[in-house]
């Protein structure tokens, strides 16, 4: 109880994110309307009992599309963050361990990538690779890995100098023991925070790319392309943009609050 009061971000964040994950996992199973079923006669109809969020310009059920969009959004952002985490950690860790010129070279490369505004880099890459989900994941990963590389490298460099690590090394601890017992616990917190914020960021970036037609291809429902498709009907059917817009906003808010909450938790422990 007390912990909740102390850390409202965590509570609200967990609630929103858990609801989202449940909606994505169970929603399509419970609400069994086909998100791709076209019914031109019902195009642009407003919310009703049969279609709680109304229908889009092709008469497809908006609730079903938002739920399936949640699946896409969550799975893409999870995959991208996991990939970025692995790629970033390996590169950052390797750079720190190698040290010297290699470290310098790798970190300057990181700086170069960071110098581009992330979303522009992703747009450029997505445009070069062409639209499609795999290309989208590659583009978003290319934008996201640098943060993890910096965190891991920084932690490894400080840890190497810590007395307990020096002690463990002197006592003959194997590199794998050093990694699992000392390094991982130390980087886990900052990485978790970074990854949670990362998921929120990627949800937004995925929506932006899909909005621009560089992400999920029709008929796959994605929040970004739903928003784009609804734009032309803003005046006559605002529910087309409201539903995916709220979904994007809420989920990013949820992950940011969660990240915030974790940061507070981790920070209070250290």
């Amino acid at each position: 109880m007390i912990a909740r009061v102390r850390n409202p971000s965590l509570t609200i964040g967990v609630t929103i994110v858990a609801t989202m994950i449940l909606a994505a996992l169970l929603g399509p199973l419970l609400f069994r309307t086909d998100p791709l079923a076209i019914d031109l006669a019902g195009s642009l109809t407003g919310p009703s009992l049969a279609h709680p969020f109304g229908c889009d310009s092709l008469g497809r059920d908006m609730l079903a599309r938002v739920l399936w969009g949640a699946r896409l959004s969550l799975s893409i952002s999870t995959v991208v963050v996991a990939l970025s985490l692995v790629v970033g950690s390996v590169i950052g860790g390797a750079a720190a361990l190698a040290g010297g010129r290699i470290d310098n070279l790798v970190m300057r490369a990181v700086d170069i990538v960071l110098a581009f505004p992330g979303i522009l880099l992703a747009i450029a890459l997505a445009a070069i690779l062409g639209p499609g989900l795999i290309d989208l994941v590659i583009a978003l990963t290319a934008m996201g890995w640098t943060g993890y590389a910096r965190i891991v490298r920084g932690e490894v460099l400080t840890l190497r100098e810590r007395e307990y690590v020096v002690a463990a090394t002197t006592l003959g601890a194997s590199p794998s023991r050093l990694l699992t017992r000392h390094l991982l616990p130390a980087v886990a917190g900052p990485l978790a925070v970074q990854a949670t914020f990362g998921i929120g960021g990627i949800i937004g970036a995925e929506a932006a790319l899909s909005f621009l037609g560089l992400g999920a291809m029709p008929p796959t429902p994605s929040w970004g392309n739903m928003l784009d498709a609804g734009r032309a009907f803003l005046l006559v059917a605002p529910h087309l943009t409201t539903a995916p817009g709220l979904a994007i906003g809420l989920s990013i808010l949820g992950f940011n609050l969660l990240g915030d909450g974790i940061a507070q938790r981790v920070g209070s422990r250290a």
Partner: protein
Amino acid sequence: MVSARIAHAARVVVSIAASAVLVASAGCDRAGHPPGTIQVDFEISPLSTDPRIGTDAASSRLNELIFDSLMKIDRNGEFVGDLAERVERPTPTEIIFHLRREVRFSDGRELTARDVKYTYESIENPELRSPKRASLKELKAIEAPDDFTVVMTTANPYAPALEMATEGIVPDGTPPPLKSASAGPPGSGPFMMLSFTRDETAKLERNPLHKFEPNSPAAILIKIVPDATVRALELAEGVCDFSGNNLEADVLPWLRAHPFLKISATPGTTYKYLSFNFRDARLRDVRVRRAIAYAIDRATIVKSMLRDSARVATGLLAPENWAYDGDVTAYPYDPERSRQLLDEAGYPAGADGMRRLQIDFKTTPEGARLAEVFQAMLQRVGIALNVRTVEFATYYGEIQSGNFEMTSLQWIGINDPNQYYMVFNSTQTPPGMNREYYSNPALDRLVEAGMRTIDVDERKKIYAQVQRLAADDLPYVSLWWSDNVAVMNRRLANFEPYPNGSLRSLATLTLQGPGGAEPSR
């Protein structure tokens, strides 16, 4: 109750957001327009202000207001004299145009046969690199025996020769346009151009040397507004006076609810079709194309999606065309027939109903909605359509070079049935307009005969056969002819729509009230 309240709240939010967009993007309000000025919104920028160059629809619409041509096409789709007051065809290969006197360019020079000759010769000059050069291929010579006579000669009898007489005339000696050219050369039409900023505005003012009716617009501000919602809002706010063929059908009832707006909807000739690449063996099989034709429920699309703002098409020529013949094979929605044809063509349905037939469908972001409808309809008969969306410039480039499997496009302003030659003759492959690489010797012979036959009744018989053959062999699957839908402020009176979407009438309509009435709310 709750949902109604939410919907209302959402509408309020949307309208606030929308007016914010409007304030941010418009930058000019009613007060900013001098009396007699009307604002016309275009969805895309004209590419050239030089009538010798611009072939895109926006350039044609704009240049028609500024330049005169020997002949023009009237509201019935017939050729009438513009600069020419009399036309003679003494032999099948010769046309003589007698020009009107006392016609002046907006800079004061008199327009003579020399200017006409110069205009045509400069289009034919490779240095100008005009895309219109190809359309003058049949023109052997153009002569100006005196100041008010122009003689065009073709190498062979060429039935659609008068189409060549519709080029806008520029003054003798007009240099090729500079890349950064703003306002184009002076013309002799009802308006002259004061300024042009690509993708932003074109400002037109009356050509003082061209007669005009009292109370007709003194100036036209053409504004490029790419977003359909903003165009609708500008009309609703009274900022924009006229928007033609660029609004979503679904928004029309909303606009109709505004008492100071009126909508003109008339049958049009813009032809929308499905196109197939004939270098692809699967699509070369006529059974596959017929199966696709039967699988697309055009009547429902026209009714529900286009809100009846189009007519289901039987071929390139709309019923208003003199050569139209609608007695051709029609393809009503018949999924069962479609499946049979696909079975016969060797694409049996799998356990899930899908066949080993995956077709790439290229389109633009604006075309994605329609593409998804085709995708869903073709899926019902077991064809998987992979929709690929790319932005317009890339898309158009790929289509023009024939790099696609299937797509949907439209022809705007079809007039002479010789269009059949230009799009289906096997010699017209890219850079020509037969982007499908379609080749059918029987059709080739017919469209060549149609091009060389001057007698109208003979031609009519030939094109009746052409229309039947094209409907059987399906180089295109005809979709629909789009209506011309113009939404305008009620202060614009006597607007006359043209079947080809031309905006010539902006020069002759009349404004009501001094400088136009304020929109009443």
